[in-house]
C-alpha cells in the first residue's frame, strides 16, 4: 500500500473536465515528478489533492485512509499531513518572514512558542534566509520569497510536500537557489510530488516521473525510462520536443 493512492480522480472547473481519471500511487519517501504539456492537469492534480479544487469523482487515500473532501474534519486532517508550495509563493504580505513561518504552528496548531521559534529559525537557516527574519515579503527577491514559502510549508512537519511549478515565476538566475533547497529536502525522506519544467532537475531528483496528458497519467516510470526509453507515443513526442533544444 502506498503512502498516497490516487484512483480514478476526476476534477473540473465549471464545465471543463481538467482531470479525467487520474491513477497514481506514491510510496512513502518517494519523489514523483509530474511532467506534460501545459493544460494537461499537473497543477490541477496538486490543487485537487490538497482540496483547493475538490475532486468531482474518484478516491484519494492517505496511509490507506480515504479523504473526504467534503468533510471539514477530514480536510483538516489531510492538510496537517500535506503541504503545498505555490508558483507565486503567496506569502502573507502583512507578515514578516518569521511570522509567515510561525503563524500556523503557533496560532493554528497552538504549539509551544519556544519550540516553534527554534524550528522556524532552523528552517530559515536551512533555506538560507537566516538573516532576514524581520523582512517583509515585498522586500525580498522572488527566489528568497519562494525559499521562505518552502520553510513555511515545512514548519508544520508535513509528510507529503506538493511543489507546484515553484521555479516558474523566478528569474533564471534565481532558479538554482530554490532547486538547491529542494534537492536538499529530497534527502529527508519526505514524500514529494513535484510539478516542474526544469527537466534536468526532474531527471536528477525523481524516483519516478509521471507523464500527464489531457487530464490523465499516461505513463509512470523511473526517470531513465521516461526520458530515455518512453513506452508511450505521447511521452515520446513530449520528451522529444523538450529535449531537442
Amino acid at each position: 500500500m502506498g503512502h498516497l493512492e490516487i484512483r480514478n480522480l476526476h476534477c473540473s472547473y465549471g464545465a471543463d473536465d481538467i482531470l479525467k481519471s487520474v491513477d497514481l500511487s506514491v510510496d512513502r519517501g518517494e519523489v514523483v515528478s509530474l511532467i506534460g504539456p501545459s493544460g494537461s492537469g499537473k497543477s490541477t492534480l496538486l490543487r485537487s489533492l490538497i482540496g483547493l479544487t475538490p475532486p468531482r469523482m474518484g478516491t484519494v487515500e492517505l496511509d490507506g485512509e480515504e479523504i473526504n473532501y467534503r468533510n471539514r474534519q477530514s480536510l483538516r486532517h489531510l492538510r496537517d499531513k500535506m503541504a503545498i508550495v505555490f508558483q507565486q509563493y503567496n506569502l502573507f504580505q502583512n507578515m514578516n518572514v518569521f511570522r509567515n513561518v510561525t503563524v500556523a504552528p503557533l496560532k493554528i496548531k497552538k504549539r509551544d512558542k519556544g519550540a516553534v521559534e527554534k524550528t522556524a529559525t532552523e528552517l530559515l537557516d536551512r533555506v538560507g534566509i537566516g538573516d532576514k527574519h524581520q523582512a517583509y515579503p515585498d522586500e525580498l527577491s522572488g527566489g528568497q520569497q519562494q525559499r521562505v514559502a518552502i520553510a513555511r510549508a515545512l514548519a508544520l512537519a508535513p509528510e507529503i510536500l506538493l511543489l507546484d511549478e515553484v521555479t516558474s515565476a523566478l528569474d533564471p538566475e534565481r532558479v538554482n537557489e530554490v532547486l538547491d533547497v529542494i534537492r536538499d529536502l529530497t534527502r529527508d525522506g519526505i514524500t514529494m510530488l513535484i510539478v516542474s519544467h526544469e527537466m534536468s532537475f526532474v531527471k536528477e531528483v525523481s524516483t519516478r516521473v509521471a507523464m500527464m496528458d489531457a487530464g490523465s497519467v499516461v505513463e509512470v516510470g523511473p526517470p531513465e525510462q521516461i526520458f530515455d526509453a518512453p513506452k508511450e507515443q505521447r511521452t515520446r513526442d513530449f520528451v522529444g520536443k523538450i529535449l531537442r533544444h
Partner: protein
Amino acid sequence: MFERIIEEAPRFFTYYNLMFVLGAMWRTLLMTLVGCSIGFTVGLGLAVLRRTSAAWLRPARYAAILYVETFRRIPFLVVLFIVLYFIQPIYSGASLLAIATVAVCLMSTAFLSEIIRAGLESVPRQQMESAEVLNFHPGQTLAWVILPQAWKVILPPAVAFVVMFVKDTSLASQLGVVELTYAGKILVNKGFSPLLGFGAILAAYFILSYPLSRLGAHLETRLGTSRNT
C-alpha cells in the same frame, strides 16, 4: 454691510450663542460618528456575508445585496423621512436626533459595505488559498490575512465618505434636528446677519471635517508603511 456686522458682533459672540453652536456641532458630530461607526460594523458584516459561499446563507446574501443596492439609490432625505414615519408610530418617545442617527446608520451601512467589499476583494485570492491549506478557519483568514491587507484600500474612501457625511447630515435639519445647518437658520431668524450666522456655521463645519480628513490622511500613511507582525 460690514458696519452691521461690526455693530452686531458684540451681541453675536456671546457665551449663549457659543454654547448653542457647540451644541449643534456636537449633534452633527454625534449623528455622523455614531451612525457611521455602526454603519461600518454592519457594513463589514454584510461585505463578509457576501463573500461566503455556503448554500444555506444564500437568502441572506441576496437580502444583503438587495439592501445595499436599494439604499445606495435612495436620497438621504427620503431615508430620513422613512425612518421618521416608521419609528414614530412604534415609539413616539424617540428623539429626532436618534431618528436621524438611525437614518445615518441605514445609509452609511450600504455605502460603507460597498467600500469594504471592494477592499476585501483587492486582496489576491491566493492569500486565502495559502491560509486555507495551513488550516486557517475562515474567520482567522479574515482577521489575520485579509483585513490587515485590505485596510489600506478601505480606509481612504471610508474616511472620505464620513467627511462627506458630516455635510450630508445637514438634511436632518428638515426633520427639525438642531444640528449645524438648522442652528444657522435659527441664528438668522433671531435677527443676526446671515453672513455672521452662516459664517459661524461654515467655520464650525470646517472645524469638524478638517481634523477628520487629517486623521484619514494620517492613518493612510501609517497603514501604507507599517504592517502587523
